[in-house]
């Protein structure tokens, strides 16, 4: 599985790029700290709290980034996945370059009803290689997942969602989803799923080895156009970043149709840093044939 866009060749590293000086790179990586962990969900041995705890966090971070990317690339609001458990992994930290993480984790369907109870239902399995470039966003990701939902079923569900969306009356009047008490009206669920899909792209781009994002709330719908061959959705969400606890408003504009590549444009408000985050992805999802093992 190739990442959608190969990372620009970085000097001396880049596991996927051309390797004219492979032995040198291998040496460099060896010299950098190498920590391998076989981790299950429970806590670390307090004997080495720093290492194990940090390791666990890094593996979690990588798994989440990989999932954001995976969800975005799959472009399917009915087949969104969330992290169930990190199963094992290994991280290489190179203070100059960043960190590379190999991680294996299980996933569940993004469906609130099934998440409420003790994990019944299918668990998909993914393995990913994530490269966090020293605190720069847009980690490079190579991720493969076992099939959770039959391809045909997924396409059917996407079409169903699309049809439901076409029938929505006045989504422009939506105040917030979920409401302040955490409730999502079942009829508005398709909007939420599509909003989450678009947000996945944003969250992937903004994730670093230290910052982790969650979708907190959809706060407004500026535009909702359903044509025969697209849904044009312009909306605002609030993202929650865990380490700074900041709430970040992002305006996202996506164009979606079942089976077609997802197009996303976004702009997030910066806070202490004057830079704001924004990005555009056109025709981004890979063609369906490459997802044969999905």
């Amino acid at each position, binding site marked *: 599985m190739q990442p959608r866009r190969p990372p620009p060749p970085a000097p001396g590293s880049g596991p996927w790029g051309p390797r004219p000086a492979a032995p040198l790179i291998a040496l460099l990586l060896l010299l950098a700290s190498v920590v391998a962990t076989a981790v299950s969900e429970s806590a670390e041995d307090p004997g080495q*709290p720093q290492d194990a705890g*940090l390791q*666990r966090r890094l593996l979690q971070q990588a798994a989440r980034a990989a999932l954001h990317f995976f969800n975005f690339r799959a472009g399917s609001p009915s087949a969104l996945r969330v992290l169930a458990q990190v199963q094992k992994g290994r991280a290489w930290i190179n203070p100059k370059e960043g960190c590379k993480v190999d991680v294996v984790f299980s996933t569940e369907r993004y469906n609130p009803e099934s998440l409420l109870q003790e994990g019944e239902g299918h668990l998909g399995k993914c393995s990913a290689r994530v490269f966090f470039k020293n605190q720069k966003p847009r980690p490079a990701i190579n991720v493969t997942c076992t099939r959770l939902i039959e391809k045909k079923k997924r396409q059917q569900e996407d079409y169903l969602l699309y049809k439901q969306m076409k029938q929505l009356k006045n989504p422009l009047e939506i105040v917030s989803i979920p409401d302040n*008490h955490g409730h999502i009206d079942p009829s508005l669920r398709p909007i939420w799923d599509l909003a989450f899909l678009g947000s996945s792209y944003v969250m992937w781009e903004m994730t670093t080895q230290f910052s982790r994002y969650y979708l*907190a*709330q959809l706060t407004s719908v500026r535009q909702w156009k359903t044509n025969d061959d697209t849904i044009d959705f312009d909306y605002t969400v609030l993202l929650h970043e*865990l380490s700074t606890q900041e709430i970040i408003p992002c305006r996202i504009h996506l164009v979606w149709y079942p089976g077609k590549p997802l197009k996303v444009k976004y702009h997030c408000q910066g806070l202490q840093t004057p830079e704001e985050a924004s990005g555009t992805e056109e025709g981004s999802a890979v063609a369906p044939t490459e997802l044969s093992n999905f």
Partner: protein
Amino acid sequence: MQGIPGGGTRPGPSPMDRRMLLNFSFILAVALGQMNFTGDQVLRVLARDEKQLSLLRDLEGLKPQKVDFWRGPARPSLPVDMRAPSSELKDIKAYLESHGLAYSIMIKDIQVLLDEEREAMAKSCRRERSTSSFSYSTYHNLEEIYSWIDNFVMEHSDIVSKIQIGNSFENRPILVLKFSTGGSQHPAIWIDTGIHSREWITHATGIWTANKIVSDYGKDPILTDILKAMDIFIELVTNPDGFAFTHSMNRLWRKNKSIRPGTFCIGVDLNRNWKSGFGGNGSNSNPCSETYHGPFPQSEPEVAAIVKFITAHGNFKALISIHSYSQMLMYPYGRSLEPVSNQRELYNLAKDAVKALYEVHGTEYIFGSISTTLYVASGITVDWAYDSGIKYAFSFELRDTGHYGFLLPATQIIPTAQETWMAIRTVMEHTLTHPY
């Protein structure tokens, strides 16, 4: 408007009169099917003699009717009260004035009073409800919680009392519930919820827990033993100003609402304002940041109140600070990776507590020190507690792990509270059996 003979305007009707009249108008409103009385006034007229009285009676007899009398013309020297619809006001006043009838305006706008009355009634209805009709499976606002506290204390006054430990920045009372079976200055356990106002699941869990304690006392042998030897203190709304703000304006508000001259952002992160590693990594000196630590340790009244209380008490043995979300149970330190001296003991206790929690609904928590499990954070509650000699200091992050985050559906309140209780109980039991 003509004054009453004797000069000056008369003071309005007495409270009794007014109430009687209002009730009358309220009944009227109901009877007339929720009519609107906007702009209608009630005029009080004093007729000097029979001649003036009959003029008033003439008014009554007019067709179509222009006034309705609440207190009809009876004898001179007795006031006559009449409701004048807003559309007729001008004519009626002209009539009265042209005939030399002295009047005063008793009620300037009936509808306004009706609305106020209705609201006050609704409020007192809520206040009067007992805790048995209080729903533990929905989220409540500040007034509802404070009202529940009063009812709760009243209903369980044998073991529960309410203490006000201070006032918030916007001058709201800061309240603590004390659970005690007597004795003086028993060793004590502290629990706080809602230090970050957007974490609504924590207040809801605290309320359920308070009720659980009184329900299970005498039935659960472990809890009964705990309460026989120790006191429990629960501060349900540790950040009342922030909490009110999450209901009125911004559901995702985290900090308190303090304002300082010169800074144009509001609020301090109350969980960065404690005197332990204050200002270090994992806190922010920018007032606009969500983790702004404030100008100096304990600068915030909400934090100062707790410090004062716990320090003065002098006999706290455990402290549990409850947050959301992430599903974690953690112990100090947050400010650094340095392990505490009894780390092994806290690790094992956390492990047991998390296991007890898991057995309720299968919810998985991770555990460890704050800095290694969640992130480095300085000036936090549990670090201060530990440094003050409280060996068993824990921080919870309740459900969920990011799916709903702060906006946890109300349907998860009771399951969350049930499982969290088992973990809290485990910590309390350990504290009881390991006196120091």
